[in-house]
């Protein structure tokens, strides 16, 4: 056990492990110290200085987030000295901040606004510097808007982009009064290595980084009597949406969400989970195909390991970072894009609507999906496959605007067709979920038996550990899979692009060998996506994750290949996995992008 340190905080005695910060020590005593640049996901910066506290006898105040406890100190978190200094600092921040709160997208969910309210900053003696600066708004990206006038320079986004994501699209430029958060040569986010993952958005305390919103466009489509508006909802949305609408973190709101969408006026409420099941069919088959080609036929044109491709932030990162390995990525489109391509073909035919008049909307826990929907390749239906992508947060806004009392809504069911799904699809929302779903199906295809894990729960690939490995031994295979008898399928799961990069570099150098790698751009997977409710941190991620797995076990069908609508679509429309129709609609290609 490490050494204990005794100290006093606000006259309360505490004994706590050496190395703990004053901030965490106070938290243990239920004493809240305000913070801005601090975020549990990130390394300590200590630059906003809002968390300063008094250490009795010291001439300077200490930043609680960055100062470790030491023996015998007496900390005051609310002395006159502290309060005056803290107020000064908040006033200073407001003086350089575009505090037109009523015109801000984050109005009502802003940490600076909360602090200003808490400290009742009603006077503004300092000179207003926010409105005479020349601030640029970068709104060229399909996913993210960066408004420097709202930036408080806490560098949370910079640390997020660099540490969690190892992308480094955002960095600090210039010094003194000119210091700002910038990009490579101050280019728009759309033209740099930004992956659109939106992690910077959910780590931003203010409205400096927000999603590009398409709410009004969707309202327009709904109001247009000639349009048939279909909506699909991603797996992770149902475990996050409630947080924005006065429910507890980790509450599952699938039924209420469907009810709300119906009340908003969408013509058909469908489920991305359906195409998640379809992804498993395609991707699982692709994996088996690659195994056979590489291990038996010696054909390495589609090499191993195969990585997943459903996370568009990961896809773009891959295109920038590992262009020489593009062939390792599964050619499967993401579930969103598979859905889009089918909505304007298969679905259109089924419900007898001219695809020209279909508006396809998706609700995603993700901002990169906005970019993905705009990729020029994503028009295989002959139209733009997905017209508008809204985040979980944007959906909540629409529900509030419509005056729907979400908490009181009854549970309703998805429409059909393309509304049915299995538990395997639901777990796509958590890191490791695609791997688990694929294994459930692929193992059964090969052996005719269920995966050898209790209750189908493949625990080794679950959890929040950054990189997880699992080996599945394949035995007693069906005759046509004889070449796999006794093989050990080596799998790896990584989430957060820093972990992804680490894994891929190990693969590239030959240090690690895998057959199948699942990667999600966002920490925690989609449940922690850049389009999810703010705040998101590990505590929140865990709760959402539990909800995902609860949802899985609550469902009668838990394997993608047993979803009756999946069986039906292959019979009626697609033929077989990797077949001609699938190739046209459900698979895609990747392009090398510059690294700068």
């Amino acid at each position, binding site marked *: 056990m490490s050494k204990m340190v005794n100290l006093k905080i606000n006259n309360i005695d505490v004994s706590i492990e050496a190395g703990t910060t004053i901030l965490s020590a106070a938290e243990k005593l239920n004493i809240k110290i305000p913070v801005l640049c601090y975020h549990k996901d990130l390394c300590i910066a200590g630059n906003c200085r809002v968390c300063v506290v008094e250490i009795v006898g010291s001439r300077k105040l200490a930043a609680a987030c960055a100062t470790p406890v030491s023996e015998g100190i007496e900390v005051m978190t609310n002395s006159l000295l502290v309060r005056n200094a803290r107020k000064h*600092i908040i006033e200073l921040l407001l003086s350089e901040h575009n505090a037109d709160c009523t015109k801000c997208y984050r109005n009502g969910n802003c940490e600076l606004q909360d602090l200003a309210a808490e400290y009742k900053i009603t006077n503004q003696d300092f000179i207003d*510097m926010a409105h005479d600066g020349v601030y640029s708004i970068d709104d060229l990206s399909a996913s993210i808007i960066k408004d420097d006038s709202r930036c408080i320079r806490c560098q949370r986004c910079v640390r997020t982009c660099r540490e969690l994501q190892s992308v480094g699209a955002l960095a600090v430029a210039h010094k003194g009064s000119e210091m700002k958060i910038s990009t490579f040569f101050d280019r728009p986010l759309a033209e740099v290595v930004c992956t659109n993952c939106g992690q910077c958005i959910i780590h931003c305390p203010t409205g400096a980084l927000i999603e590009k919103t398409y709410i009004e466009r969707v309202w327009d489509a709904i109001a247009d009597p000639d349009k048939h508006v279909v909506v699909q909802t991603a797996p992770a949305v149902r475990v996050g949406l409630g947080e924005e609408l006065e429910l507890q973190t980790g509450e599952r709101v699938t039924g209420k969400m469907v009810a709300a969408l119906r009340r908003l006026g969408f013509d058909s409420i469908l489920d991305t989970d359906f195409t998640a099941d379809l992804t498993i069919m395609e991707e699982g088959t692709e994996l088996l195909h690659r195994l056979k080609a590489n291990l038996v036929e010696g054909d390495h044109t589609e090499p191993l390991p195969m990585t997943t491709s459903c996370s568009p932030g990961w896809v773009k990162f891959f295109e920038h970072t590992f262009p020489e390995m593009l062939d390792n990525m599964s050619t499967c489109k993401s579930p969103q894009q598979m859905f889009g391509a089918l909505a304007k073909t298969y679905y259109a035919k089924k419900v007898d609507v001219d695809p020209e008049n279909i508006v396809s909307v998706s609700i995603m826990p993700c901002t990169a999906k906005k970019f993905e929907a705009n990729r020029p390749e994503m028009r295989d239906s002959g139209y733009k496959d997905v017209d508008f992508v809204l985040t979980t947060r944007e959906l909540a806004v629409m529900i509030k605007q419509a005056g729907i009392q979400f908490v009181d809504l009854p549970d309703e069911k998805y429409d059909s067709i393309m509304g049915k799904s299995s538990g395997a699809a639901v777990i796509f929302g958590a890191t490791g979920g695609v791997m688990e779903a694929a294994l459930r199906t692929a193992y059964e295809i090969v052996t005719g038996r269920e995966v050898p894990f209790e209750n189908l729960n493949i625990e080794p690939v679950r959890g929040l550990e950054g990189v997880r490995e699992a080996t599945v031994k394949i035995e007693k295979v069906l005759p046509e899979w004889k070449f796999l008898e006794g093989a050990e399928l080596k799998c790896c799961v990584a989430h957060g692009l820093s972990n992804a990069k680490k894994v891929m570099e190990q693969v590239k150098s030959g240090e690690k060998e895998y057959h199948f790698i699942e990667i999600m751009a966002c920490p925690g997977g989609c449940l922690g996506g850049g389009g999810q409710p703010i705040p998101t941190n590990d505590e929140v991620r865990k709760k959402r994750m539990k909800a995902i797995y609860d949802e899985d076990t609550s469902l009668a069908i838990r394997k993608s290949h047993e979803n009756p609508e999946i069986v039906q679509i292959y019979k009626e429309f697609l033929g077989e996995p990797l077949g001609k129709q699938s190739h046209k609609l459900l698979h895609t290609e990747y392009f090398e992008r510059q690294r700068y």
Partner: protein
Amino acid sequence: MGKNMLKRIDLIFKNEHDCDIILEKIFKRTNEELINDLIGSGLKGRGGAGFPTGLKWKLTSEAKGEAKYVICNADEGEPGTFKDREILTQVPHKVLTGMAACGRIIGAKKGFIYLRAEYNYLKPSLQKEIDTFHETLKKLKSDFRIEIFSGSGAYICGEESALMESMEGHRGEPRNKPPFPTDAGYLGQPTVVNNVETLAHCWTIFKHGPKKFRDLGVQDSRGSKLFSISGDTPTPGIYELELGMSLQDFVDDFGDGDSKAVQVGGAAGFCVPRKKFRETAIGYQGKLTGISLPTGGSMMIFNSSRSMYNVLKNYLEFFEEESCGQCTPCRVGCQQLLRGIEAVKRGDKPHYYLTKLLRLTETMKMTAKCGLGQSVANSFSSIVENFREEMIY
């Protein structure tokens, strides 16, 4: 004037070249003896903070690490000071010897000279000096080696933790403290950072013994110090003077007979008005007013033709630009101070707004992350309090 001439000291630039003899002497003695000499001499850092050098080396020698480093801070960014440059030009071997002594004591194999970008022209001659010095070290069977690191050009990179960030290839932003460099400095390892002049003084102490150094100066402020004297003076330049002198004697010696104020320690230092010359001593603890001897030893003399408003504005412009910009009190505070005094001067803000600004500097002093933001209060409050009318009319 002539009568009150302050004693000129000639230690730093004294023509001495016996590196090998001094090093041999140093390597023969125990660390404890060496550290005791250093502590006994009373030498304090000449780079601004005035931390006792012997104690710094002792702490670093006791700290645990895989490797340890000595860094000579030659970033000399304070406007108007160039005494470190002079040392590196005239007596670089003294600095190298100080570094080698430090390396031996703390257990470092590697030393760096963090050279201000503008001093890059010194590199060839300095490198030659280092090569010769390495030969001497080899003969003495020491594997200590010194390398020059070219600075990145920002004033803030003179702050030791920003300096190390910049050496590690990052943006020059000061770090949180603790940990201090003595525990976790360059690459997270125990590191001594010393000013050029501090290291040069070590030569004197190890060559002539601590007493020779200690006999100069007063109480807590021992030894001599280089001063860069500028402004309204007939005799600008670099002078080595004894610590502890009264500002009155200083002005009598160097002023033009009409001195209205002296800025002690550059932009980060204090402004002393004529009426306080007598009670102010130059040293780490001014007996009467608590004035501390500041960065670089810059002494700027102003006569009655100068507008103190312009002087302050000038300093604030410097800070507003040179703040690294990471922490709120400094980044925004400096801008508010500058715009604030301009607004008062224009009449857009009432004169009592100065009081609000003075309170702001108190907050900056207590909450800024590094010495830059913390020291803005020094010049601001000493000028505004002593020359309030000039700020308003």
